[in-house]
């Protein structure tokens, strides 16, 4: 088995391009005259567009590189497309956001690209250490990005907290990897799959390895009870970074997590599904209930993103319960679909929060949305649609996502889980709708210079247009995305 051939470099061209662009941004930033620095954002965007084209062209041609360490299959391509898309939106949003916050660092775009590269490695690697490396590259970039608002203690606190807990969880993940290596003699997922076939979690080594891996990923996915860092980090970080974390980092973690558990530990499906069932129920209950009492929009959305990880986990649990049957792919497909749809609505909501200004500072309290419908009807309508979609009410993307995860739960004979999740979906409607209530049904006080308003800019408009198009189009006609998600799950067996 050869570990390297020049052709492999061609296969990972998207990753290489992203890294190259990150380096170029880092190098050019100090030497460029400041009036040209906008060009760095456009450079990043251009790279992402090229990458998406390349990835789309790889879609139909599965390959593996570096002796099977990296897989270029439909599954990886699905996530990579999604991640590049989110990174593109992040660059666009940040372009307006950083200007508004007077927060300019050339490294910012470089960190977005580096984090993206880490995520792309995570979802395409079929070897545990490569996945770990990807995770670290992503996390390290995000730690820095979370603390970019250097003048604000909250941002620094977020960064420090994220770093400590992130490092801790990485340690646990690594420990799990090493135990799994001990139990199976390999760090490659196919080899692990062969080794665990026919075994169960009665084997203590395998049990501990699985639990540690589960906990490590649970930290990254922000699943209860490993979610403690999320609200503080999401609230403290610059909002454009929060959006990136809430969407891209979650998607990438799910991508790696599903590959490890469905492909590598697929033989233990029924065993590990119990672990995730507990996490799933705890996440649904706690995420939704705690979100009820938040007064800060960013915090509310943080808890909402925790809750949404819970909904996605339903698909994971269902996959486990369906075991080796041909239908078990439905569970994974529903997770992929859920996260893809979640991307549009969550990013859209964060984009609006990011650009809502109260005087010169960010308006991030729920009260700050008071009367937005009267002053800026279009912005309020967009936020309304995002909230309705997050609550899972048709005909929006959120409903389609929920429909499919619940369907996989019922298919796996876990109707009670679907009932429980739906009841908490109804609970969630309360806090999403509260924002609608504030926007539409409360009269604004006298309009002054300090009244909150949405700062519109061309790049923000593009972000919002993409998000709303996704929410509405996939809410009404989701078929293409459903097919894509079904196709993407095929390589996982």
């Amino acid at each position, binding site marked *: 088995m050869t570990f390297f051939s020049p052709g492999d470099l061609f296969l990972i061209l998207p990753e290489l391009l992203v890294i190259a662009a990150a380096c170029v941004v880092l190098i050019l930033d100090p030497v460029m005259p400041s009036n040209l620095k906008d060009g760095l954002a456009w450079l990043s965007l251009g790279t992402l567009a090229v990458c998406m084209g390349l990835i789309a062209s790889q879609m139909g041609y599965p390959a593996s590189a570096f002796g099977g360490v990296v897989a270029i299959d439909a599954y990886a391509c699905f996530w990579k497309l999604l991640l590049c898309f989110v990174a593109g939106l992040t660059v666009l949003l940040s372009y307006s956001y950083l200007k508004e916050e007077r927060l300019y660092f050339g490294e910012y775009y470089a960190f977005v690209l580096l984090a993206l590269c880490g995520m792309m490695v995570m979802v395409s690697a079929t070897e545990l250490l490569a996945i770990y490396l990807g995770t670290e590259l992503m996390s390290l970039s995000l730690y820095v990005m979370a603390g970019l608002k250097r003048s604000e203690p909250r941002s620094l606190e977020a960064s420090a907290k994220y770093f400590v807990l992130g490092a801790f969880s990485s340690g646990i993940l690594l420990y799990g990897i090493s135990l799994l290596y001990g139990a199976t003699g390999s760090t490659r997922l196919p080899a692990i799959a062969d080794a665990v076939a026919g075994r169960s979690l009665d084997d203590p080594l395998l049990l501990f390895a699985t639990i540690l891996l589960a906990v490590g990923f649970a930290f990254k996915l922000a699943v209860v009870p490993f979610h403690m860092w999320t609200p503080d980090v999401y609230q403290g970080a610059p909002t454009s970074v929060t959006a990136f974390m809430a969407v891209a980092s979650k998607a990438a973690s799910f991508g790696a997590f599903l590959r490890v558990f469905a492909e590598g530990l697929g033989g233990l499906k029924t065993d590990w599904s119990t672990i995730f069932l507990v996490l799933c129920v705890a996440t649904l209950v706690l995420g939704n209930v705690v979100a009820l009492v938040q007064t800060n929009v960013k915090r509310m959305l943080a808890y909402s993103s925790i809750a949404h990880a819970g909904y996605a986990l339903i698909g994971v649990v269902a996959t486990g319960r369906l075991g080796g049957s041909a239908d078990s792919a439905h569970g994974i497909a529903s997770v992929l679909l859920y996260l893809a749809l979640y991307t549009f609505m969550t990013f859209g909501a964060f984009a609006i929060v990011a650009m809502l200004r109260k005087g010169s500072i960010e308006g991030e309290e729920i009260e700050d949305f008071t009367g937005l419908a009267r002053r800026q009807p279009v912005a309020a309508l967009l936020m*309304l649609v995002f909230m309705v979609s997050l609550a899972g009410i048709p005909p929006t993307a959120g409903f389609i996502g929920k429909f499919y995860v619940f369907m996989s739960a*019922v298919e796996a004979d876990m*109707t009670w889980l679907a009932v429980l999740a*739906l009841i908490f979906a*109804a609970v969630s409607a309360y806090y999403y709708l509260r924002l609608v209530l504030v926007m539409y049904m409360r009269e604004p006080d006298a309009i002054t210079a300090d009244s909150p308003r949405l700062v519109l800019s061309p790049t923000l408009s593009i972000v919002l247009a993409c998000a709303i198009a996704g929410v509405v189009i996939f809410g009404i006609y989701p*078929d293409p995305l459903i097919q894509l998600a079904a196709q993407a799950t095929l390589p996982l067996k």
Partner: protein
Amino acid sequence: MTTSWPWLTVLVFLPLAGALVLYLAKETGARLITLVVTVADLLISIPLWWWFDPSSSHMQFVETAAWISSPKIQYKLGLDGISLPLILMTTALMPLCVLISWRSIETGVRNFMAMLLIMEGAMIGVFAALDFVLFYVFWEAMLIPMYLLIGMWGGPNRLYAAVKFFLYTLAGSVLLLVAILVLYFQGGHTFDIQELAQGTYSHTMQMWVFLAFFAAFAVKVPMFPFHTWLPDAHVEAPTAGSVILASVLLKMGTYGFLRFSLPMLPEASQAFTPLMVVLSIVAIVYGAYMALAQTDLKKLIAYSSVSHMGFVTLGLFMFNIQGIEGAVMQMVNHGITTGGLFLCVGVIYERTHSRQIADNVGLTKPMPRFATCLVIFALSSLGLPGTNSFVGEFMVLAGTFLMNKPAAALASLGIILAAAYMLWMVQRVAFGVPSQALLPKLQDLTPREMAILAPLVVLVFLIGLFPNPLLTRMHASVGKVIARTAPPAPAPATATQQPEPLIQPVEREASALVIMPHPEKREPSSFTGVTLDTAEVRAP
């Protein structure tokens, strides 16, 4: 009858397209555009009445298109004798809702009208959907516009009412989604409503699914004890919102029972009949009793709705032709009568800005035309023979009498109490001495308001005197439901005999006026006691 033109799609999407047009046009034209769109929708729906083939129990005007490939979810619309009258009622009421809001809505006219149009599209969609997922999408899509209608243009306590309405109905309908999914996996992997209605399901599963359906539909109806959102929502909603709520939204609950619970879950429906009967009777009596105590006109009508909808659920769970046809009749009639009453309250409110009975006394002198309409609707609401509600309530009671005499006796109490609260309300509002301070405000109906109330007054008498065209269109479809629900043998056979002489006088007049496209096809089916003699009356 099939037509090549997709009429139902047009009916559903014309209002939605109209809502888009509103935002392209000037705000000042919003009222007119909406009126034109709703009238156009009405005009499109009217021919369906004649094109509909009453002899067939099949879905008609069926349209099918692929929507989602895996699992197979179709865009499928169609009509039968149960949904046809409800759709016509919806399209008929919407222009009136636009007209009543013409002056009373001053802020955000464009948004308001857009909400009305979205509601219209979704409501027609609910009644026409033949795919369960499609049904659910329309069913839920209605929540947000209604929430905004109440919350943005409602009364002083509108926020509370809007949130309560939203959470109640959402909490009820989430279980519906699970039930739909369970049916999918048990019923041969299909979401097609007609296919699901032919499946056989295990007893245990039927019981659970019935409960889930019940949660969704009983909240919507609303059945006792899930009715508490209704008075709040009705009172706080703007007039058009109250009309839509009372006339159409409540019917979606009973429509759900009739379309899904009965044919899909016949065993469970039978098993839960005692519960449904008890809850219906409690609703009838309790609603009426509460209505007696109200001092707010809208609240009085809201509680009377609880009572009247109790008749509908009672009729549905009698599983005989009188009960179910009476229930469908009552659904349409309640839509017309209660819609009319809410419109009347809207008219007064525009003048006196109060809905309290005490603030609106003695309106006959200053507003004779208005008082006439109010009295007509009130008499219709209490079921005076000759008005529409009499037919429905009478048939429900006749059907109940055949199955369960004590229940019929108790339900009759509702009619007596209805007479009490309605007449008492009329006595105070129409007769009495108006306060001098109010007199200058009390102008009689304007031509616009006449145009709103007159069509409903006509319908009250038209259906009251000539119910047969409506009943004929239901027979086949209701027969199909009954064949599915009830054991074939004795119940329908005895049913044919009894009510015949009682309804006959109405029949004779009916046959003279009715336009029937296929008189030769209208064979009286075995349990159509109500129409037996029409043919011979026509003959001479």
